[in-house]
């Protein structure tokens, strides 16, 4: 297993090198000359120009420029943004990245889970009404024109029903008197969610392992999980953050909903297909012969192996929704990486655009890496090397 992980990691790093190189040359090949642009930019004072010229290394050869770019890139020095001068690109990205990450991760995990469960159920009841209904609805959303769907969702829930805010990340009226910045609250939200997720994982790992956890350990597990969630909420409340957290959450709902609607059918249909194959497997028949209850045969046998190919789809859908991230973030005015890339490209902010593009790629590579590891964890056949180190 360890060898497998390191092997994958090596591949990821190699891909990253190539990707960053590509991004660099792509930016070099863009029309419009950086030198001219910033020399004629009246916003930048003379002293800063010299500093910038040096920092960008524009007096060196292209190869040397590339070399120092790579060196700087891997030290996290991405230069200074033109349009938000003098803010370093790194700081901007570090502010935007979590927002994009949280938004797309939530939407993808949600749509994957929904797609997985629906696909499993409809494959198990193939040919029945629920199968047709879910397939038709899923395909309708899947093939919908994304910006249109987003508009419809906004119109319905925000404009018409007024349940949720139209767009943005926060409600400025609420936050004008807030004792925290949006970033502080968001950071706390993310760490709170991470603590809950890790906690629940550990609880279920230690208390619910084995084939048939006893009733007592199930009760323990549930109460521990509930206590954990309650504790996190109480801490947030005592910090006075709860209302702000709720505000950010409310702003997340519509984009997450839209992304989920458009994405879940991919996983669902894939899961359905994959499971229609696994139900034919001899071990599924054998599981029924063993007298296992129907849901056990479905979940632990047919669905468990059908899950494997759909894990790949999780990454693919993450990739496609990230590349559509610019659209989502623009439609919902979500101040994340996609929107940053969009505005940076429009305003010729090369350092920022390069950084944003590079980080989008890194993000995807990491997702890929995680999916590979997940795949290996889920399928014991993958890492098999002859010894039983699985």
């Amino acid at each position, binding site marked *: 297993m360890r060898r497998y992980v390191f092997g994958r990691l090596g591949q990821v790093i190699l891909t990253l090198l190539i990707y960053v190189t590509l991004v660099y040359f792509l930016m070099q090949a863009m029309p419009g000359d950086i030198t001219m642009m910033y020399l004629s930019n009246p916003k930048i004072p003379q002293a800063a120009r010299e500093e910038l010229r040096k920092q960008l290394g524009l007096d060196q050869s292209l190869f040397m420029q590339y070399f120092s770019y790579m060196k700087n890139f891997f030290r996290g020095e991405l230069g200074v943004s033109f349009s938000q001068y003098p803010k370093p690109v790194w700081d901007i990205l570090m502010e935007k990245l979590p927002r994009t990450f949280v938004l797309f991760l939530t939407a993808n995990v949600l749509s994957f889970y929904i797609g997985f469960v629906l696909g499993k159920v409809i494959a198990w009841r193939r040919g029945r009404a629920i199968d047709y209904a879910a397939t038709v609805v899923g395909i309708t959303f899947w093939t919908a024109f994304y910006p249109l769907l987003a508009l419809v969702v906004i119109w319905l829930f925000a404009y018409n029903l007024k349940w949720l805010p139209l767009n943005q990340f926060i409600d400025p009226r609420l936050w004008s008197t807030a004792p925290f910045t949006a970033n502080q609250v968001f950071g706390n939200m993310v760490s709170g969610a991470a603590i809950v997720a890790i906690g629940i994982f550990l609880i279920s790992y230690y208390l619910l392992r084995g084939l048939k956890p006893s009733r007592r350990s199930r009760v323990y597990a549930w109460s521990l999980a509930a206590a954990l969630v309650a504790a996190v909420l109480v801490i947030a409340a005592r910090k006075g953050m709860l209302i702000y957290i709720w505000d950010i959450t409310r702003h997340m709902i519509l984009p997450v909903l839209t992304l989920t609607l458009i994405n879940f059918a991919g996983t669902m249909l894939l899961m359905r297909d994959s499971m229609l194959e696994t139900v034919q497997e*001899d*071990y599924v028949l054998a599981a029924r012969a*063993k*007298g*296992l*209850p129907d849901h056990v045969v479905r979940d632990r046998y047919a669905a468990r*192996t059908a899950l494997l190919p759909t894990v790949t789809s999780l990454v693919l859908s993450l990739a496609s929704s990230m590349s559509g991230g610019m659209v989502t973030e623009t439609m919902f005015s979500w101040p994340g990486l996609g929107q940053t890339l969009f505005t940076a490209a429009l305003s010729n902010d090369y350092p920022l655009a390069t950084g944003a593009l590079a980080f989008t790629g890194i993000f995807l590579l990491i997702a890929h890496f995680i999916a590979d590891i997940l795949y290996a964890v889920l399928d*014991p056949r993958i890492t098999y090397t002859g010894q039983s180190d699985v």
Partner: protein
Amino acid sequence: MDTLLRLEDLTMHYKTKAGWVQAIDGVSFSLDKGQSLGLVGESGCGKTSIAMSIMRLLPYNAQLVKGRILFGGRNLYALSDEEVRQLRWKEVAMIFQAAMNSLNPVYSVGNQIIEAIVTHEPETGEDEARERVESLFELVGIPKERMDHYPHEYSGGMKQRAVIAMALACNPSLIIADEPTTALDVIVQDKILREIEDIRRKINMSMIYISHDVSVIAEVSDVVGVMYAGKLLELGPADDVFKRPKNPYTYSLMHAYPSILGEKHDLVTIPGEPPNLLDPPTGCRFHPRCDWATKECGETAPLWREITEGHYLACHNPIRTKQGKSCKQQKTAKGGDVIDTSDGN
């Protein structure tokens, strides 16, 4: 002796686009506690279909036309799904034809056996089940450290043994072994068969062996049933049936395989193909290929009747002699592929 399983006039058809496949037609037999029955017949004659009927695991397009299956006196097809689920593995376990693929690739082998135990015996803890699996592994000859390994880490023979261990896990009163050893080479095949037989005798369990290979059946069964195209043609004590076959098909089948019961026979092939079960021949289903066939055979199906104690037969013209010269004369006269038939005993 107590009857454990009884099939009464079982008739089961599969619905297909082309029509009804008459896979089982009027099959009756009964099996006592502790007895082993061998079902033999060419590929596609309905052996697996019988096994699946007994497990009540038939595919959705299968239809029970008539007859019934009594297990321990209970009509299997009158039970609820839940009752059948509890019966499976606890009472009737199975070694599948595709034993190699009947283990789930993503769980360890031991885990899958433990699962069967704790499902059917909720009072058994997982540790206790684990110990039981260890002793089962010992019984079938797999090192017990192998428990936590995954199926892909097993060799073919080991998987086969693991599947046998799994069938034994809940001490069922009956195990159906559908071609339990076909995927293995002959030496391993023999060894495993003998091991199953040993275990079976030790714990006085009933068994149904299914094979297309007469020599396998001859080695392990108390009673043999010979099937052809969805029908039983002959059934009786193994010694009786193999020493004095009454049905011409039994006779041909025995001689289609070399070396049965250790005697030397030259190979006789049965000319022709088994019939299409969508539209089986009228009368006796074997008549187009039978060297003993008379006019009657093509018109009326022979009745299933007991000819001597425990020996059943369906045939209009049973072989009367002791598998002797008359067969040879008759066959060669009709131009069958007889190379040489020994005089037997």
